[in-house]
């Protein structure tokens, strides 16, 4: 079965969306389009605006500015036609009922509901189906929430920090279930602060920081953007004078850090988007690096780097095309 999509091939779109709570700008000029079949991770530190963005996407709140559309209509229309299912971080469950009863209810009210037994199985909660909802562990509760999100044939599944409270093995199992949803052609959007989840599961990563989208690409692209490899080596004075300017011009260099400790020995750390070319050019320039190491920074470092840059650069750096517009809006307020 193929996913139904409107002509534009848009699952969801944010168009210049802003939302403030009091003086805090939770979402600031967000422009974003989700395409069918994508598995998208929404990454950001606490308070970055992840949950607020998802609330806006699902129509739980209205934007102060801009517009949000789901499948070409309003979020509410998408929910009423059973095209979107969601698992919220703060999504409570009804008490005094059994898991099976709750899932049955979710299937019954979904316009394109699945059979309850099927949903219980796919969420991996068949064994706890006869337990009372109030007597579940945190991880089990999360899976019941997940079951509610996939109770029908949704085209888009939205998950806010879905694996919070799950232990490692359960988490792995959860993502296997999730991937089956994505393989069935569904678009999946999930917020997380586990970077390895974004790294290994998403084919697109969005980095949100202080309500702004500061990076959007594959996890490899994001790592590259942040200068995700580190070249470390020592230079000995006996091999010639240190020429920092020459080091700086090595291809792919994002940042350079030189420390001198022992007599005549300096440690050089280069963060590079193209370590291969950087190392080749290093030798070509006549340097003789001792103890050369090239290490990957991982998405975590990349993430810290990108958000760190966004912090130090009030105006927003090269990562956002709309940065200057945003600050103009801000100062106009």
């Amino acid at each position, binding site marked *: 079965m193929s996913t139904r999509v409107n002509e534009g091939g848009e699952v969801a779109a944010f168009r210049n969306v802003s939302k403030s709570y009091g003086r805090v700008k939770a979402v600031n000029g967000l422009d974003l389009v989700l395409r069918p079949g994508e598995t998208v991770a929404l990454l950001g530190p606490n308070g970055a605006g992840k949950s607020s963005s998802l609330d806006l996407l699902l129509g739980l709140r209205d934007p102060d500015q801009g517009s949000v559309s789901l499948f070409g209509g309003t979020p509410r229309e998408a929910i009423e036609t059973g095209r979107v299912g969601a698992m919220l971080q703060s999504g409570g469950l009804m008490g005094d009922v059994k898991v099976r009863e709750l899932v049955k209810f979710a299937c*019954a009210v979904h316009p394109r509901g699945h059979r309850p037994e099927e949903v219980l199985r796919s969420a991996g909660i068949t064994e706890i189906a006869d337990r009372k909802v109030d007597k579940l562990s945190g991880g089990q509760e999360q899976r019941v929430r997940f079951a509610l999100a996939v109770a029908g044939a949704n085209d888009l599944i939205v998950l806010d920090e879905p694996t919070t409270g799950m232990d490692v093995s359960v988490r792995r199992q959860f993502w296997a279930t999730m991937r089956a949803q994505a393989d069935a052609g569904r678009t999946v959007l999930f917020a997380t602060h586990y970077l390895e989840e974004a790294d290994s599961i998403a084919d697109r990563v969005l980095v949100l920081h202080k309500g702004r989208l500061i990076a959007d690409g594959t996890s490899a692209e994001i790592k590259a953007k942040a200068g995700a490899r580190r070249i470390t080596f020592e230079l000995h004075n006996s091999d010639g004078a240190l020429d920092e300017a020459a080091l700086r011009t090595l291809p792919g260099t994002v940042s350079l850090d030189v420390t001198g400790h022992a007599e005549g020995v300096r440690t050089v750390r280069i963060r590079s988007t193209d370590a291969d070319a950087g190392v080749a050019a290093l030798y070509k320039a006549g340097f003789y690096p001792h103890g050369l190491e090239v290490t990957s920074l991982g998405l975590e470092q990349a993430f810290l780097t990108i958000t760190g840059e966004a912090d130090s650069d009030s105006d927003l750096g090269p990562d956002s095309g709309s940065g200057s517009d945003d600050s103009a809006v801000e100062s106009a307020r």
Partner: protein
Amino acid sequence: MTTLIQLEILRTLRNKRYVLFTVLYPALLYVFFISAYSGGSVAGGVPAKSYFMVSMATFGAVGAVLTGSAQRISVERKTGWVRQLRLTALPGRAYTLGKIAACAVTTLPAILVVFAIGAVEGVRLGAVQWLGLGAALWLGSFVFAALGVALGYAAQPDSVQPVVMIVYMLMALFGGTWFPVGESLKKFARFNPVYQYNQLASFTQPGHSLDTSAVAGLAGFLALFVAGAAFLYRKDTKQA
């Protein structure tokens, strides 16, 4: 929507605390009052067993709907179940309607148990009067269901219990639940929905017909509470 209503009724009846508080408690108090008055009458000449049968039925019914709606709504706003429901295709009012429907079903046992004790203790009414009284008290409980919904949206979960108890007890105290409202207080009692609610039963006394001013008063309170509940519901939805 019927699925939600069924589930709401089921879980309410399953809740032991509910059954204890709203069904057994008024029934026990009724038995206590009958023995305390030992066959006598309350001020105004109405036999105690008749008087307290009505007042304990209304006491139980009001308790059932207030705790059933106010506390649950307040807690479920906090836990996020209300938000979760907004992500289903159910219309927004389904949640509130489900709560009121569950209340309406669950007030019946509170009323019927007290009636049963009354019948055993010797309260004699014609079949039509029994039915009429049951219907009047059942319908009257909707006024308090609406009040419960409003309180549920107004109060935070950590304060909802005391708020509900204070409102409930004050209304009961000055509404004729524990003793008949004295003449001097009657002009204020008009503003007390529990007093009006108890007045609904006056037609069962010889020589009285249905107290239409009580019906009108309750209708007014119903309109007021529904408007308040709708306003608070909308406010809450915007903040969700």
